[in-house]
């Protein structure tokens, strides 16, 4: 019987790169304080008529200032996926709900050297699962203008991945990706900062999903992303509105728009409540075919019925509560709901016959600054 991998975090998912320090135009650098963060995240997914998938992810974050011009940052995460595979129209065995267990371990380390008006960071990531290994390196440089009202960021990264599916379909298959990013952050007023960045990625190698029947994808993928962010501060310290938009397109024919809104609102004694809303819409890949599985399949041509490559819209609604205790400790609790529907796609029709996906996440975090 074929083991159907939950498309979810099954594998891990994109391990985080480092976030553009470019964002810090106007802020003090380097960070004067060290920081330790602990976070426990729980993800549960539902599909009509299917059993649940669950992901548990404990993670640790450490930021250490070293000497006076260096910081070292590390992140350790362990995610375990359990539960039945969701009933996807494209998985033959999905309906039987075979249980799946997969564990991923990942480690990221970044070292940053700060100069008077610049910084240089080097980082590496390692991620291990039963069937997917990934090693990545990156370098990011930032340059501030003399008045520190503008920061330019340039980054490059490379990742070397190996796929060994447990069903033997993919044996030591490789995938390599190179990416580059350029961004500009700017202080607009004494309460507004904006950032624009473009990212280009080129990958080649094995992209098929070894756990799906008839899944055959191109041997390379070129991606572009344009990201725009705007943060606005209100008079009350800590009250901030964050808006972000990302435009994505790739050589597989997918175009996506994602909009993020978050409003951070402090109340009574430094408590903070942060409601946020996200909308995502994407078009389908050129080689995505509507169900039933096999429709449109031509031997030798790319073909996929993976719902993630279909056309749909998705909404995430979340609420976070931050509770400080003492001057150095902060805790937070976050609840979010995710729903994906074919009919929610913007600028066009969604793919037909998709089952809506819903997910709920709960997170609890603890941060200590020293």
């Amino acid at each position, binding site marked *: 019987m074929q083991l159907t991998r939950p*498309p979810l975090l099954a594998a891990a998912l994109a391990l985080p790169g480092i976030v553009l320090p470019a964002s810090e135009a106007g802020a003090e650098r380097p960070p004067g304080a060290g920081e330790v963060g602990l976070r426990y995240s729980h993800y549960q997914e539902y599909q009509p008529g299917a059993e649940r998938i669950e992901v548990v992810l404990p993670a640790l974050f450490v930021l250490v200032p070293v000497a006076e011009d260096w910081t070292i940052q590390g992140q350790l995460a362990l995610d375990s996926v359990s539960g039945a595979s969701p009933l996807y129209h494209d998985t033959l065995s999905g309906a039987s709900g075979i249980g799946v267990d997969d564990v991923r371990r990942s480690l990221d380390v970044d070292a940053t050297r700060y100069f008077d008006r610049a910084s240089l960071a080097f980082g590496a990531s390692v991620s291990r699962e039963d069937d997917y290994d990934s090693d990545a390196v990156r370098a990011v440089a930032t340059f501030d203008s003399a008045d520190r009202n503008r920061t330019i960021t340039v980054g490059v990264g490379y990742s070397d991945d190996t796929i060994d599916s447990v069903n033997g379909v993919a044996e030591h298959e490789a995938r390599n990706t190179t990416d580059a990013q350029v961004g500009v952050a700017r202080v607009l007023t004494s309460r507004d900062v904006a950032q624009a960045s473009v990212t280009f990625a080129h990958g080649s190698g094995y992209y098929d999903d070894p756990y799906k029947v008839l899944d055959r994808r191109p041997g390379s993928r070129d991606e572009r992303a344009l990201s725009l962010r705007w943060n606005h501060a209100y008079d009350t310290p800590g009250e901030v509105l964050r808006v972000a938009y990302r435009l994505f397109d790739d050589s597989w024919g997918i175009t996506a728009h994602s909009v993020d809104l978050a409003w951070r609102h402090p109340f009574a004694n430094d408590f903070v409540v942060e409601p946020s809303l996200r909308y995502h819409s994407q078009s389908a890949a050129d080689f995505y075919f509507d169900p039933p599985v096999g429709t449109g399949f031509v031997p030798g041509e790319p073909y996929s019925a993976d719902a993630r490559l279909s056309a749909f819209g998705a909404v995430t609604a979340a609420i976070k509560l931050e509770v400080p205790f003492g001057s150095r400790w902060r805790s937070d609790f976050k609840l979010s709901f995710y729903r994906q529907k074919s009919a929610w796609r913007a600028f066009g029709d969604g793919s037909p016959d998709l089952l809506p996906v819903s997910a709920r996440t709960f997170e609890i975090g603890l941060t200590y600054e020293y």
Partner: protein
Amino acid sequence: MTRALATLAIAIVLAGCAAQPVQPWEKRLLAQRAMRMDGGNALERDFARQVETSREAARGGEGVGGGGCGCN
């Protein structure tokens, strides 16, 4: 359209509409942790991105050289 949008966005940020540059002593609100573009919490941000990339086809725009994933 993508290119036009990108050019426009970068032009806006580069040129800015800031006729009056913000002075160092006027950065009280900008210096707040909550004004960081990454939101100030790496673990929270990464989990959100992980949920998104596992369910959607788009990614990127926040950094480079992330480790790969088996999520295709």
